[in-house]
């Protein structure tokens, strides 16, 4: 019997879409019962959202003041305690899941399957390695608890017409005090969220300055897109780090991805390979980005972008 516990990602008031994607992934395992665990100071709103997810049987909440912020060392022992009756524990492959899930796995004495991109069976999965240059089939031991993260870009969100029961749980777990949350600096933006946006416009090193990124913002705002960037653009200080797309940034799957002045390094491409349509604008016709682009335009971004923004 497969019983899967999914660790909800949330900001205290609303659920992150990554959770609904984990549910879809888990639903791909035949005959699985799926529960969602919400660890929070006040779980009410998030639990109510999770209860609506199609395919979820039960939402379990653990409410403690210490859970107001997602500190891995604090959450992990509680997750371990809550996981006792489950065969599988899943979390998203976001920075939240990547931080906490291996800590859970180690406390359980097992390895983790990172970045599930396809389900082949209850213990058999596909995952990417070498920045997506290869896909490996992995087989986890059947006798042990299975801890995994789900590559969210590989899955659609579960629908919202369910109505699972919500149950409060208290667990006996030792909560460490050696790790203290100080704060988080979130860049305020009215633009769509990069990880869930249907359209994304990304800029690379070729933008050459923070001011020039206004050209990218103008196009994004015209078409209601989120804004992304390459590592080179972030490292150069043109744009904030959370906009980085790729192997070490965000892995996204928008319907439309417009890459502007981006060469197409493998580390960047691995972040966009699930995009519906990739548009590349680059002045170098040999740029590797054109190998993956559905629509390519060789040209100077400083003339192309304004023209595109004006006429779309």
């Amino acid at each position, binding site marked *: 019997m497969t019983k899967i516990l999914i660790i909800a990602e949330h900001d205290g008031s609303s659920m992150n879409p990554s959770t609904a994607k984990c549910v879809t992934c888990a639903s791909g395992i035949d005959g699985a019962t799926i529960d969602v665990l919400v660890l929070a100071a006040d779980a009410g709103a998030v639990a109510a959202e999770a209860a609506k997810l199609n395919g979820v049987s039960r939402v379990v909440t653990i409410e403690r003041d210490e859970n107001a912020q997602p500190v891995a060392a604090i959450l992990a022992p509680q997750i371990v305690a809550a996981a006792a009756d489950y065969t599988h524990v899943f979390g998203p492959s976001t920075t939240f899941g990547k931080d906490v899930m291996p800590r859970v796995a180690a406390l359980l004495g097992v390895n983790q399957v990172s970045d599930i991109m396809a389900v082949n069976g209850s213990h058999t999965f596909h995952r*990417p390695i070498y*920045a997506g240059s290869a896909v490996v089939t992995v087989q986890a031991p059947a006798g*042990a608890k299975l801890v995994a993260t789900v590559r969210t870009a590989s899955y659609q969100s579960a629908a919202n017409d369910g109505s699972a029961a919500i149950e409060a749980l208290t667990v006996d777990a030792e909560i460490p005090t050696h*790790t203290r949350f100080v704060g988080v*600096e979130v860049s305020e933006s009215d633009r769509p969220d990069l990880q869930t946006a249907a359209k994304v416009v990304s800029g690379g090193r070729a933008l050459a300055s923070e001011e020039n990124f206004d050209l990218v913002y103008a196009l994004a705002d015209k078409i209601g897109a989120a804004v992304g960037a390459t590592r080179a653009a972030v490292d150069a200080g043109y744009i904030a780090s959370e906009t980085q797309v790729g192997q070490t940034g965000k892995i996204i799957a928008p319907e439309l991805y417009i890459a502007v002045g981006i060469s197409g390094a493998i*580390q960047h491409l691995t972040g966009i390979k699930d995009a519906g349509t990739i*548009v590349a604008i680059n002045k170098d016709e040999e740029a590797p980005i054109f190998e993956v682009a559905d629509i390519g*335009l060789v040209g100077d971004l400083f003339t192309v972008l304004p023209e595109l923004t004006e006429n779309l």
Partner: protein
Amino acid sequence: MEKILVGLKRVVDYNVRVRVKSDGSGVETAGVKMSINPFDEIALEEALQIKERGDASEVIVLSIGTSESQQQLRTGLAMGADRAILVTTDDELDPLTRARIFLEVINREQPGLVVLGKQAIDEDNSQTGQMLAAIWGRPQATFASEVKLDGDTATVTREVDAGLETIEIDLPAVVTADLRLNEPRYVKLPDIMKAKKKPLEELPLSDLAIEGAPAISSTAYEPPAVREKGIMVEDVPALIGALKDKGLA
């Protein structure tokens, strides 16, 4: 603090275009350039800067792998590490077993800080640092972009999806390095010569009495799905036309 321990993994260089072997038994690694995992170079740079500021007295680099990993450890010594430990094994180990090896070395060396990369770019697991912190019962500060030490605590800025998060941790602890933590220094020729004289201790894994974890086996490898060949357009009106054809404009 006295010591900082840094993990250096030998991996296929990030510039190599990795290919799956035609029989699907793995990826082609014969004859390709091998390097220190880029995140581990950043981890080492951080440790060296901490030492240079006078907040640590020794930087130890640890690698787990075949004797070929000596090359990467020598590079680490040339960057400025004081000594190297190579736990030798011909087996491909899983992250939890590797974390247990790190813990064994920690028990011997008693470092005040352990700095690893946030992920190894071969298997892209991103597990070892978190697992080590868990079994050691110590704090973890993953995806670090800034580390400030203050006596027995450290304040670490972390690159998270929402932006930049700050946590305070008690030492000893595990920090995993993200790309923007620092820029690793280049190794100079005289340093390579000097590094040859620095101590590199080899410990066969079989001498360490490490309990192996239940491994996840890799049963088949395949190349990723290729995207269908796209079209090239001449100008902006043609681009807008192509987007309209797809219902995207």
